[in-house]
């Protein structure tokens, strides 16, 4: 369809969250409108304190075809996981 608004991806940072999390997408004519729509569509239940929007076309994504060369080599390297430490109880978000 011609004249259709471009697709935007929406990221919301929750009240107690530390980073923005992808929550969905929407269509809007420009960045301003995308922010407004994101507020109306994705923060209706008091979910967020900050919103990012980015045009879906501007996101560079890894290709599913390259999944194995990209990700398989890390599967057998257990020494890269910090699982041998004890985390103090008062350290959240770990």
């Amino acid at each position, binding site marked *: 369809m011609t004249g259709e*608004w471009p697709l935007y991806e929406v990221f919301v940072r929750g009240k107690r969250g530390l980073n923005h999390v992808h929550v969905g997408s929407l269509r809007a004519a420009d960045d301003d*409108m995308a922010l*407004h729509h994101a*507020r109306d569509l994705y923060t209706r239940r008091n979910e967020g304190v900050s919103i990012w929007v980015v045009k879906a076309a501007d996101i560079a994504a890894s290709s599913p075809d390259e999944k194995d060369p990209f990700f398989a080599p890390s599967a057998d390297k257990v020494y890269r996981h910090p699982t041998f430490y004890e985390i103090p109880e*008062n350290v*959240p978000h770990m």
Partner: protein
Amino acid sequence: MAFDNAYEALADAHDDARWAFGTGFDNPLSGVDTTVPSGVDGEDLAQYCLMLGDDALVLSHRLQQWCTRAPELEDEVAIANIGLDLLGQARLLLARTGRADGSGRGEDHYAYFRGEHEFRNVRLAEREHADFAQLVATVLVLTTWRLAVFQRLQASADPVLAAIAQKGVNELTYHRDYAAQWVVRLGDGTETSHARTVAAFDEVWPLVAELFEPHDVERRLDGVAVDPAEVRAEFDDVLAQVLSAATLETPVVPAKAGVAGGKGRNGRHTEQMGYLLAELQSVARAYPEATW
């Protein structure tokens, strides 16, 4: 905020949300002290809350009529959100009416079981929107006016009204912003959108003067109510800014006359109001014992 743990400070756990209102679904003012302050006439206060409540209820109904009809899904949700905010304001104000007039009647009584002549909303709220431009023009005008009134109402001598106004200010600021963005977009858009926005403001403007005419109830409620004439300058400023960004001019059209000297605040409405109420009230009247 506690700083003895760096992680807590990072997590921004501070929560300043306040429960200014009761959480009972049936009675939005449940748990709130609704005593009428001494020196304030309960009957006048009830009438005033009815005016502000009816504005919100009737405009909310007009916005609800856009459900499934909005040009884009995203805007449909936006319009429904605005309608729901206004419905929330109406619930609090109508519930306040039932406490202030001493009758103890609930919000449903005022919404569903009053006749057209008993509604006190301004006539612009009931006006039908023939297109999207008329919708955003109406919302811009009404929310700019209402926001200016609510900002002053936060200092009302009635603490319940002051709290309702405080809650409403954030909501109305967003509503005004939403409408203003669209007015600018359409006014400063294509030839067609510009022409239709000009036509929309020509339709809306005859009902603008009425918003600033003080009613006897507002005059008597000194310190409790806001004199709408006071907010005219602020309203004109905001509209001038938005209209100029939208490459539009303030319409020059005569104000719509009242009927037998009365306007919306006196219960004299336009012919569209009867149809609106028929839709709004028919289910509640057909099944008076129904609960929801």
